[in-house]
């Protein structure tokens, strides 16, 4: 399982999984963007490169997903594919990422607008042999 959605009265919440933190971040992006549009309907003709640094994995996840929402809105994009590489040095986490998608069109059937990523319940945790990332979105 790459991710699962949790029940929440007003907002949307999910847990994403991955064998690595990179993979958990990719799956978190897929879980979030999958709420906006069916990725099967979205091509990958446009891409955006994303570079971020943060002091903790949770902050990095918050920044990564917030950046995707920002880019989608200002460039009128929907995303379907993601790549992430996270490195750690001197206590800082750095993310090099790429999000691919295309300009939003009416036939994408976008029906959900996500306002923002929240810090509520936000966690990135290493289990025995996999990572878990939980996120609550304000919708």
């Amino acid at each position, binding site marked *: 399982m790459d991710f699962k959605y949790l029940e*929440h009265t007003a907002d949307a919440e999910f847990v994403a999984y991955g064998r690595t933190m990179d993979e958990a971040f990719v799956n978190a992006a897929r879980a979030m963007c999958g709420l906006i549009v069916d990725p099967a309907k979205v091509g990958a003709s446009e891409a955006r490169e994303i570079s971020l640094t943060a002091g903790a994995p949770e902050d990095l996840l918050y920044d990564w997903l917030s950046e995707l929402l920002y880019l989608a809105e200002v460039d009128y994009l929907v995303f379907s594919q993601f790549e992430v590489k996270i490195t750690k040095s001197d206590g800082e986490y750095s993310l090099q990422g790429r999000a691919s998608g295309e300009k939003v069109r009416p036939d994408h059937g976008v029906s959900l607008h996500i306002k923002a990523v929240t*810090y509520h319940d936000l966690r990135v945790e290493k289990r025995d042999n996999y990572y878990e990332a939980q996120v609550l979105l304000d919708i």
Partner: protein
Amino acid sequence: MANLNVTKVSEDIYEVPQAAKPGMNVPGRIFLSDRLIQGLESGAVEQVANMATLPGIQKYAMAMPDVHIGYGFPIGGVGAFDMEKGVISPGGVGFDINCGVRLLRSELRHEDIAGKTNAIIDLLYKEVPSGVGSESSKLRVNDAVLTEVFNHGARWAVENGYGVKEDLEHCEENGDMKGADASKVSQKARARGKPQLGTLGSGNHFLEIQVVEKIYDSVAAKAFGLEEGQVTVMIHCGSRGAGHQICTDYVRVMEQAARKYGIKLYDRQLACAPLTSKEAQDYYGAMAAGANYAWANRHVIAHWVRQAFGKFYGRDLKMDLVYDVAHNVAKYEEHDVDGEKKTLCVHRKGATRAFAPGRKEVPAAYRDAGQPVIIPGSMGSASYVLVGTQKAMETTFGSTCHGAGRVMSRSAALKDVRGAEIQKELAQRGITVVAPNPRAIAEEAPEVYKDIDAVVDVVDRLGISKKVARLVPLAVAKG
């Protein structure tokens, strides 16, 4: 009913004891009827308790009867903080800064509009873009204009031909909140705000044509210019991507600040900073700028609504602004605390200011009656106009509810409720709904919300605002 750690204090008042959670500085107070508390989530009670752990909180961490689980503060949360010892928290305001609602009263009577609502709502839907996805605003805003909008809100709108000067007196903060500072707004928030001014947004935002069904308080109704059978228009929207980005940016800043100032957080979304700190002052400047953006937004939309009605009827119609209230905001206000007048930072997250007669913040025309409180119902249900009271000043820092409050998640709504069927059911009741797609209707279906009448009955019985008028929908355009 979940196993809630609450005790009943008196009719419609429940307390979350200060001992419920270590670190609570005050008890919590939840204003709910015995019936409504049956549906309360334990997570919402937890969030009231979390609010109470914040430094400098005064009297009680409070939740209005439309309370439901959110993040940081619950929706319906009200918290007032001491200016010296207290904090400000973006999570106590929310992402949609100054999400709010305004009411226009028209000179039209129900009979003047009967049979025409379908055509008018179609026209409104066309004239007011939702601005979501590929659709963009009709306005072209440059950087200099955007700075003015952030700094002066609705005043910018009026000076540029959107609306009239009298409208400003009938907006909370005169639609131009002091302390707004565009220089504290990030480039990202500007980039999101620029193409979206004059757009409704999605989710629970709407434009609605209504008729005044019932007047409860004829004196206040007269002051507000409302009478039975009169057609009104309600506009519910906020600060769009600009506000969302301002909050996103500052939650991150506050996360660091809370650590720096040694504030223990039970929920990281409660990230906050002492009101005396630079971080707090920067956030306040940016938040007030976001609030001003929302007032300008509702002003521009109201202007287009007036134009659309004028176009339809072939003449200028009188459509005065009754009032415009903010639902998500933090403000410096003077309140009595244990017999002493104090300036406090009052956070309202999904709550409405409900100031008493005589307060200087209430417009001159309404000062004898009290501040109008506009409560939007959920799609297809009634809305209310209430009036602020002295009881609210004494009990809730001059606050009341803001709407019905959700009881069903969006995903559950999508499973249980079909948008097309709801549209048909509402049409049978004479209510037209236009929306971008059936899903947008299903997510906001009447049954996913608490009963608005029950919520309003609680605040009316408590006296923290009193019923003035009940408005019923004729046609809705959903964002």
